[in-house]
């Protein structure tokens, strides 16, 4: 009688996945997104999926939601009007933005500098100074604070942020300004940098604080609106949002700290992949989430996704934990072109997007895209989605022919060239998160999802040597699945910056204990039972003087047993793996983090009926496609009719409602017990 509902709102579709906690049975539904008010699309979906499942909204205990509302507020500059108070002498901190111009030599000529998130005219400074050691150098000038607040109020700010130099060591001046603001600017939310991010580096701390404040009103409005509407529908379950780091947070907390949900969207797919991997009996996974304009990749080792300390959104790099998801501008809509000057074949980063879209979609697109190349080659059959949607193969051919002409090759060669290039771009992104981090991709399986992931996963797995290539069950709604199956999470961080040799184990433990208590309290407040809370620690270590820290996960018992030396030994090992050398330089303990996790729900997967290995019952028809330089005979199968143990030799195509899986020549697909398709090289002989 208890259900979990995962809902992922994307640019084009809202995906829903309703999960029966008792038997793992699930229903999925796709409905058009309603960008003017996402809750409309969500409610349409909720009605449809509960009806289909014969479930009442009241039976949904958890409503778990991944959203790009915060992301879009940043990308589209639709955040609140934020006022920023800085230390005297630091007004231009966001304007100078660390002086960084992206790109190579001469790139400044063509770089459009983005506007600071807190506008310079709404940034004002106040006298008062804390030193690097935390001592007060000059007292805070409270009259000046009141004057500045008055001015910001007159300028109509909607949110106030305070970010002072060295506040990460001593936040007293910030706190005082917060108190004065509460008196003088009632009703205006205030964010203090030492609370949002108590870490060294003034620009990053300020930016994170401002980003948080800018998206807060937008997120808050979105969440409360959604909560009201869901209540009107009789949904009484708990509403949680997916964090960028793949955990869940209560909607109330998300309203306060929206900076943690900036990359909520891509995190859903990765957590979904984790759940699928567990059911498929795999622990190491590379994910390949291929959308219309871009591809997201991530690495899961031992069923844990790699995390990073920064969230990248557009041009902003915000200090908040996120899954280590790399994005490349390569997707189904990526446009192929041949520049006059170089005669090179380029694919992307320009994209045809949803409108006008690929030529084959007949929505006005005229430029050849990756999807068109897939259609030309026969990888995407013309009658998609059970005949409800017809692709224009002739149009796609004409468009790809322009590329063939420019390169002086045949139509099919040009089409395969486009696919090879886009696969190579995905491969490049996967290398960044695997080989470049010291991981051997041959020890990982590759999972393709999103609309087009299963079309490319086989070829990219071949490039990586990552087997099996996996087309997970319901690849089109994996994000929603991830939302539904992950756990509550919260974390806190502190700057520590002490040499390891000057640190006693007691120092370290007292700080860690304090942090543990804080975040345990947060999860308790969010309704997680005490006995389900697990706390983990992370320690960032580096050789004193380096800029790059290696994060090490430790638990309390290990710390007790091995002490600080144990941590340092693990650091040396990790450094050697990453960079091929160790040094005699002293170690510095840079940051400490504590993570509190709720229990992951033990959700079973639904088993398919057993088959006899012969997939003929699911076969739709014979099919011709172009692969390895020639036309080849293959077949098309209906995924819904496959049984566990079915074996499909490549080349073959397996279709379902919202996705198509391509099995290449020389490979064999096997259906596992819960419906995942695992593709491996066909063994010799």
């Amino acid at each position: 009688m208890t259900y979990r509902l995962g809902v992922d709102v994307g640019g084009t579709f809202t995906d829903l996945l309703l999960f029966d906690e008792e038997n793992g049975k699930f229903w999925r539904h796709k409905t058009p997104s309603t960008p003017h008010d996402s809750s409309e699309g969500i409610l349409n979906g909720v009605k449809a999926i509960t009806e289909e499942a014969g479930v009442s909204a009241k039976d949904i205990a958890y409503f778990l939601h991944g959203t790009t509302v915060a992301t879009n507020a940043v990308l589209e500059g639709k955040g609140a009007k934020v006022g920023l108070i800085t230390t005297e002498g630091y007004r231009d901190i966001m304007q100078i933005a660390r002086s960084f111009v992206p790109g190579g030599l001469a790139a400044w000529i063509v770089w459009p500098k983005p506007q600071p998130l807190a506008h310079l005219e709404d940034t004002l400074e106040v006298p008062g100074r804390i030193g690097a050691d935390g001592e007060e150098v000059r007292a805070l000038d409270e009259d000046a604070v009141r004057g500045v607040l008055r001015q910001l109020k007159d300028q109509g700010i909607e949110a106030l942020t305070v970010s002072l130099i060295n506040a990460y060591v001593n936040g007293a001046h910030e706190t005082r300004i917060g108190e004065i603001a509460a008196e003088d600017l009632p009703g205006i939310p205030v964010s203090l940098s030492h609370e949002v991010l108590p870490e060294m580096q003034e620009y990053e701390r300020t930016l994170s604080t401002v980003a948080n404040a800018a998206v807060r009103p937008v997120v808050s409005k979105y969440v409360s609106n959604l909560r009201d509407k869901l209540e009107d529908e009789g949904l009484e379950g708990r509403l949680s949002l997916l964090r960028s780091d793949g955990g869940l947070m209560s909607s109330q907390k998300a309203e306060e700290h929206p900076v943690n949900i900036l990359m909520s969207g891509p995190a859903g797919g990765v957590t979904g992949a984790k759940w699928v991997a567990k059911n498929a009996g795999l622990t190491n996974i590379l994910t390949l989430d291929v959308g219309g304009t871009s591809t997201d990749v991530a690495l899961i080792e031992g069923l844990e996704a790699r995390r990073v300390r920064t969230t990248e959104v557009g041009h902003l790099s915000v200090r908040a934990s996120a899954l280590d998801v790399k994005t490349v501008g390569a997707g189904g809509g990526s446009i192929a072109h041949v520049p006059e000057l170089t005669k090179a074949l380029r694919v992307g980063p320009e994209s045809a997007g949803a409108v006008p879209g690929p030529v084959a979609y007949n929505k006005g697109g005229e430029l050849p895209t990756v999807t068109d190349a897939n259609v030309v080659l026969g990888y995407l059959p013309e009658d998609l989605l059970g005949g409800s949607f017809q692709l224009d193969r002739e149009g796609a051919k004409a468009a790809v022919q322009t590329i063939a002409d420019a390169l002086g090759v045949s139509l099919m060669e040009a089409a395969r060239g486009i696919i090879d290039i886009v696969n190579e771009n995905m491969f490049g992104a996967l290398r960044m998160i695997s080989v470049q981090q010291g991981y051997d991709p041959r020890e990982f399986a590759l999972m393709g999802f999103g609309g087009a992931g299963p079309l490319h996963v086989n070829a990219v797995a071949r490039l990586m040597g990552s087997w099996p290539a996996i087309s997970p069950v319901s690849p089109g709604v994996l994000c929603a699945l991830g939302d539904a199956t992950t756990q509550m999470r919260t974390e806190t961080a502190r700057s520590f910056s002490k040499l390891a040799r000057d640190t006693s184990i007691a120092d370290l433990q007292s700080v860690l204990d304090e942090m543990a208590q804080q975040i345990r309290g947060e999860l308790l407040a969010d309704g997680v039972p005490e006995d389900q809370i697990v706390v983990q620690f992370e320690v960032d270590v580096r050789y004193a003087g380096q800029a790059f820290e290696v994060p090490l996960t430790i638990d309390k018992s290990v710390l007790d047993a091995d002490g600080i030396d144990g941590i340092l030994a693990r650091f040396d090992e990790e450094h050697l793996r990453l960079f091929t050398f160790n040094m005699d330089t002293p170690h510095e303990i840079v940051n400490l983090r504590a993570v509190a996790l709720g229990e992951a729900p033990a959700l079973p997967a639904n088993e398919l009926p057993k088959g006899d290995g012969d997939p003929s019952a699911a076969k739709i028809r014979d099919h011709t496609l172009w692969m390895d330089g020639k036309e080849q005979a293959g077949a098309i199968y209906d995924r819904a009719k496959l049984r566990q143990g079915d074996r499909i030799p490549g080349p073959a195509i397996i279709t379902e409602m919202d996705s198509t899986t391509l099995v290449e020549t020389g490979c064999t697909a096997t259906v596992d017990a819960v419906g995942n398709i695992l593709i491996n090289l066909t063994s010799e002989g």
Partner: protein
Amino acid sequence: MPAQIIETNDTPFEKIDIDPVTLDIIENALRNARIEMDATLVRTAMSPGIREQGDAFPLIADPAGKMIVGQFGSFIDGFLKGYDDTLEDGDMIFLSDPYSCDGAVSHSNDWLVLLPVFKDGRLIAFTAMFGHQSDIGGSVPGSMPINASSIFEEGVRIPPVKIWKKGEYNDDLMKLVMHQTRKPDWCQADLNALIASCRVASKRVIEMAERFGDDVYVSATQELLARNHRAMKALLSQAVGEKPVSFEDYLCDDGKGYGPYKIKCTMWREGDKVILDFEGTDPQSAASINFLLNENMFKMFFGIYMIMVFDPQILFNDGFYDLIEVRIPKGSLLKPQFPAALSGRTHALGRIFDILGGLLGQGTPEFLNAAGFSSSPHLFYSGWDTRQSNSREWFQLFQIGFGGIPGRPLGDGPDGHSLWPGFTNVPNEFLERYFPLRIERYSTEPDSGGAGLHRGGNGIHMTYRFLADGEIAIHDDRWFVPPWGVNGGHPGKRAKKVLERADGTTEIVGNKIEDVAVKAGDLLHFITWGGGGWGDPLERDPETVGLEIRQGLVTPEGAREYGVVADIKGAIDADATESLREEMKSSRGELPLFDYGPGIEELRASCEEETGLPAPVQPEWTANLAEAAE
């Protein structure tokens, strides 16, 4: 005698026809390998100069030493010609002496590592990287003595030597080298980082060759060079005319009281070939501002500027080198004779880019940006930190500053940003945590960007409060000859340095000074130049000027340069603005393409009054040097 390359497998690489897709795949893979080199370096280096500011440059070359990916062009060909030794599997070359590598590195602070990559007994590639070391010994902390008159005062000079020989590490050599520096810990870490980067790239090259086959890989590199050659040939014939055009600009001074020094470049095309001739450049300096300019490096700079606009996705490589001929007079500022001092070459290196912009922009307005490269302004601060009782710790800071980016066809120049690729500032909280410093001000300098339809970026005004007694050195330029504006835009304001002593006295100090003692409590105002303006300032929307007053980027007084009358709150007096603009329009002549300011003689006459510093004295050269530069 050229280097003798020892290969145990003498089968030549077979030339294979490469299909365009494989070619693009290899191009992408090489590009990724290069990104990996950068990432490895930044993560493991230790000196703030490399790890925060990114002062390091990678490359991957073909077996002949031609750069396939990278950004400063290849020197390997020249190195191979001059290296009198063998090169075999397991060797790695280490060098820092500019005179031993044709200026591939242009001062001894840049340490370079070169790794020949062998596969199955054949040389298949080179990988190399160099990075700026914070200290390599010599007469001053930081090893860039302004007063040096020869390279022998500028720290340890490393001729090309084998740091690894047939897989054997030369420990004694490295002990000797590290013994010369004040910061062996930084140097060791940074050198490790350079080596790790080269090894990563070498691994990637071998993986690529394994994946595609050695012949395919090598043939692909040749085709990439040829592709670049074809593209540049087409580009040059469109963009460069047969009629010679010239451009000249100045370095303000040499730090010993002499200046300005002229750099002049003339460009024309003869058939397919473009000539870039530095005839007319002043002779070399007796101080350390000489810049030993490698011809290939300059070709690369030139090519990058060209390509940036036409196909930014093109891979920069050495393929087009034979389409360009660079002529640099011997004995000139850009080709000084051994043992001229070189450590202060950053000013001329910067100025080269302004000259390129001006040179190309004359014929192709889409290229024309205003001026904004001064140099990389440096601050050195060193001494003994005794703030903790009974401890005495040596500290040494080398920091790179930034100025304003010029007004551009695209729009305003960003304020206080870096013209150098990938550079960032060092976070002030980091400085305050690890050095006896407090940064009291870190802001842009109002009105310093040149007025224009597109405003030049403001320079930075950074105020250091020293918390320990010590010594400082400053390297900056553009304090005497302003960065020029274009298309009617005004020049940017000049750089300035002011010491405000704890005892209440204030003095304006030079922009190239060293061995200046500072006391705890003293303040240094380090103010950099603004970028030149682009286009007619009288065409700029008065409301934008008003907004920038509220933002503190422009003052009401500065607004007058735009013909805008506004109060301190940025409120525009529309009538007064209109009449001021009318008056300014009628009294001025035709808008110049370049606005250099008042000219050298007038700058000299008003120098003391405007800058607070004596005017530099016109340098004179002994006959033989002057002749050499003719």
